[in-house]
């Protein structure tokens, strides 16, 4: 008898003891996650763009409310001034387990919290707690860049299994920088090992604590001052456009939206990126109503404020494309820097039996021009001729119109090297890619909707249209900014970056983020300088942007740039200006685009001018809208 007991005792306490000791520890330990503090987003001067604050949240425990939920929801609806249907919808969120309190209202006032706490009998199962919330000390700027946070979704957990450990109320970045750098901002979950008794009661005593690692800060190269300047200048330009009569359409300019990019061409960093319409990012700290969300999303025709036009919108670049056509022509030796071509009022493809006429924006023959003059005047017929040279080269290389096959697409090849038809690789989600049309692209269109497009071989008109940035070609404002930065810096193409570095909360750099060099303009540095020099004439008397830059101290801060007026069927022209200053050694590249903003010199160029004035701290008085009629 004693032998049996002692043997068993020996087995349990000596031989198998370590395993039981481990089980005893596991028995009593409950792991409670400790939330890290989400990192801040700073501008390049260290100003807080996105910080952390706390708000009161109302939560409802469905198990406790039970069958009194109708009465409780009614009272909450009255108190918080939220429709009962919205509360019911939030309460039915299946992401929460039955015993977990469900947040039904965020950012409620102190008074409302007191009402709920004082009259607990009226609000069974209703609790209030403070929850961390993002704050925006700089106000309503950079909304689309910063993005927003939201509760983890099931899809996000699927994509990132690491998120499964976080409590369901945790927020993660769901747009913009918040999304792109979420893994840094998020931090690492800590764990509090609590001792619990058999009933599961936490005894407020713990054995071990793994502290959370707070999220790192993301410092952007965005400068809050310049960002505000860009947004205000764009908004002002759009407001002016709304009051500008467009004789072609017989209406005031619609100016449905626009974008501005300010880039440092030497580093590839983005200093400001504006998209209009915009919104106050603090709207995300409260539940957004469906109606509000619909307004922010906009329609397929005119996207709303959530849409970052600077990177998500692809538009025909119009004449802002011409410097690159010129560069490609120089590269192919179709022209030299001093080759003069005529600039008639219209152009016909030699031997074209259909006698299709390609018009210049200016019906008068302005004589012979070199590339410099053609860029300054934005002579379309000059570039039609370059387009035709590329077409000829295409045919010479073996392209057959009848079959739509063979040959080498030289122009597309060169433009591709300048970054067109590709996304820039910017560190922001949802970047769109411009279109660099090719024979294959047209064939795909044809296959997509044969009835709409008919048979679509690549025709000379396609190349000719592309030569003035029209036709199927589109670019995002950012693609254009990267290409102009390459003109500004001697030819280097960068994958631009909005973020500058990742810092610990204490300010030590964890990781420097550098724009990557992704290529070079396929022309010599000297030729790049030649084009830049040519563009500096655009803002001077005789140039298409001369009216917009009247009174600007070009002698001390020369501005090189190019206007663009992109036609889209059924719409007012899209207004572009891509500029850089000082032209001899550009510090900034500024690209502005206004949808249905009229001519480039009318709306976009004054926007850029205002931004440059701010950048160089100039006070040149009122900027008048240009009277430019060029494309």
């Amino acid at each position, binding site marked *: *008898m*004693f032998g*049996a*007991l*002692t043997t*068993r*005792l*020996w087995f*349990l*306490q*000596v031989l*198998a*003891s370590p*395993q*039981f*000791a481990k*089980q*005893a*520890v596991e*028995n*009593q330990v409950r792991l409670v996650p400790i939330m890290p503090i989400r990192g801040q987003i700073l501008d390049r001067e260290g100003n807080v763009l996105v910080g952390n604050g706390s708000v009161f949240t109302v939560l409802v425990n469905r198990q406790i409310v039970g069958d009194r939920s109708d009465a409780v929801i009614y009272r909450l609806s009255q108190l918080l001034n939220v429709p009962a249907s919205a509360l019911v919808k939030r309460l039915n969120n299946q992401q929460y387990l039955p015993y977990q309190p469900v947040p039904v209202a965020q950012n409620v006032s102190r008074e409302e919290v007191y009402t709920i706490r004082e009259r607990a009998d009226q609000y069974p199962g209703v609790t209030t707690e403070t929850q961390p919330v993002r704050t925006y000390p700089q106000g309503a700027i950079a909304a689309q860049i910063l993005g927003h946070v939201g509760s983890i979704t099931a899809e996000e957990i699927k994509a990132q299994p690491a998120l499964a450990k976080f409590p369901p109320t945790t927020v993660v970045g769901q747009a913009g920088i918040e999304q792109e750098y979420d893994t840094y901002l998020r931090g690492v979950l800590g764990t509090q090992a609590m*001792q*619990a*008794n*058999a*009933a599961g009661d936490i*005894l407020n005593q713990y054995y071990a604590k793994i502290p959370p690692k707070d999220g790192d800060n993301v410092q952007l190269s965005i400068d809050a001052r310049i960002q505000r300047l860009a947004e205000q200048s764009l908004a002002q330009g759009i407001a002016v456009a709304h009051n500008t009569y467009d004789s072609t359409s017989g209406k005031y300019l619609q100016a449905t939206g626009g974008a501005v990019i300010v880039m440092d061409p030497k580093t590839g960093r983005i200093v400001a990126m504006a998209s209009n319409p915009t919104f106050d990012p603090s709207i995300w700290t409260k539940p957004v109503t469906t109606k509000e969300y619909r307004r922010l999303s906009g329609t397929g025709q005119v996207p709303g404020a959530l849409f970052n036009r600077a990177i998500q919108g692809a538009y025909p670049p119009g004449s802002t494309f011409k410097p690159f056509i010129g560069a490609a022509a120089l590269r192919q030796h179709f022209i030299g820097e001093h080759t003069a071509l005529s600039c008639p009022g219209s152009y016909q493809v030699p031997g074209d039996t259909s006698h299709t006429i390609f018009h210049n924006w200016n019906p008068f023959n302005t004589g012979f021009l070199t590339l410099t003059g053609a860029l300054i005047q934005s002579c379309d017929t000059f570039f039609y001729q370059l387009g035709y040279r590329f077409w000829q080269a295409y045919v010479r290389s073996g392209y057959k119109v009848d079959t739509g096959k063979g040959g080498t697409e030289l122009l597309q090849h060169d433009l591709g090297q300048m970054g067109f038809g590709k996304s820039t690789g910017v560190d922001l989600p949802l970047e769109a890619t411009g279109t660099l049309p090719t024979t294959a692209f047209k064939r795909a269109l044809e296959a997509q909707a044969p009835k709409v497009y008919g048979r679509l071989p690549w025709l000379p008109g396609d190349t000719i249209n592309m030569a003035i940035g029209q036709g199927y070609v589109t670019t995002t404002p950012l693609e254009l900014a990267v290409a102009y930065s390459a003109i500004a810096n001697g030819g280097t193409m960068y994958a631009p970056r909005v973020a500058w570095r990742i810092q610990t909360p204490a300010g030590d750099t964890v990781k420097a983020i550098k724009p990557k060099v992704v290529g070079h303009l396929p022309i010599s540095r000297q030729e790049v300088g030649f084009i830049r020099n040519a563009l500096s004439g655009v803002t001077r008397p005789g140039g298409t942007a001369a009216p917009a830059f009247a009174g600007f101290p070009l002698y001390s801060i020369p501005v090189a740039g190019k206007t663009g007026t992109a036609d889209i069927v059924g719409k007012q022209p899209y207004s572009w200006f891509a500029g850089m200053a000082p032209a001899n050694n550009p510090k900034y590249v500024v690209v502005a685009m206004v949808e249905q903003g009229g001519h480039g010199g009318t709306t976009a160029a004054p926007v850029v001018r205002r931004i440059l004035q701010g950048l160089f701290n100039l006070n040149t008085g009122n900027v008048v809208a240009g009277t430019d009629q060029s494309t």
Partner: protein
Amino acid sequence: MADVPVPRRVAAKTRIGENSPVRHVDLPLVAAAVGLSVLGLLMIYSSTHRSAAEFGADPGLYLKKQIVFLILGIVGMVVAFVIDIGLAQAYAPIFYLGAVALLLLVRTPIGSSALGAQRWFQVAGFQFSPSLFSRLAVAGMLAAVLADMKGEITLPDVWRVVSLAAIPMFLVFIQPDIGTTIILATIMVAQLVVAGTRVRYLVVLALAALVAIVGAFQLHIIKQYQIERLTGFLDSTQTSQTASYNLQQSEIAIGAGGITGTGYLKGSQTNLDFVPEQHTDFIFTVVGEELGFAGAALLLVLFAILLWRTYRIAAQARDPFGTYLAAGIAAMFAIQMFVNVGMTMGIMPITGIPLPFVSYGGSALIADFIAIGLLLNIRARRFV
């Protein structure tokens, strides 16, 4: 029995007379019983102070109550020691009938129930459990009956004994208190064996018991949870969660103790209420966890001393009644110790049997000390 030498003691300076029973107190027996009780006090405090404090009660609540029981028990022991053992024999039927009456009474609304069993009376804030006293009453009654039998024990004699035991066994069984039923059965069998019952009668008895048990299953007198608890130790994976949880937590507690234990009041299994019924039936797990193999072995040694002394007393008793009674008590302590300690380690079924002297509980402790008093009495009478 005369060949057993009388222990020689160095004569202490004492006024106690040569023939006074006090001279013949079996000190190792008393020391073992008191030692186990003190160990029990420590373990009871360890397993209850924290949860009592959490309910806002005095952390020493259970400890103090058990100390009162211990004092009462020692008083009971002294009384049982000083009375004439002949009276015990003479009044055995009275005690027996009294015990049976109380077992019947506890089934009336006067009795209190808990955990699905109706087992005790609530008296002045204390619970009085008649089934625990019935152990002694049955041991005394059967000893008296067997002592009266002259010559070889016949089958009708066996049936007489069995019938007498069966009445209280049935009454405790339907409480239901399977543990006490097993104890009573063990006492009976031990006394029959010591009285020289033939083996074949015992075999018949075993078969009858088997039929009775199968019958009880068939008639659903045994409740499902009892079956599970009884069979849980055979395969802990196949039984209900509750039944295996008890055993699992119990084994974790004992196993976690290791050789030297986690230290007094430092066992997590004990402090955090992981082991159910820990101050009563599972008190051994506190010893195992906090004092380790060393403490558990000490406890077993104390029991070994207790059983060794009880066996000696049975062997050296002056008359058959003393022998049978001591044998019954020895069987009672042995089965309780073995089943209780065994169940905490998973080698015995889980039944509600307290660990003598150690488990919290007044009725058991007082009854056990009265048993010690009776043993001392039987031994001392040898020298009269």
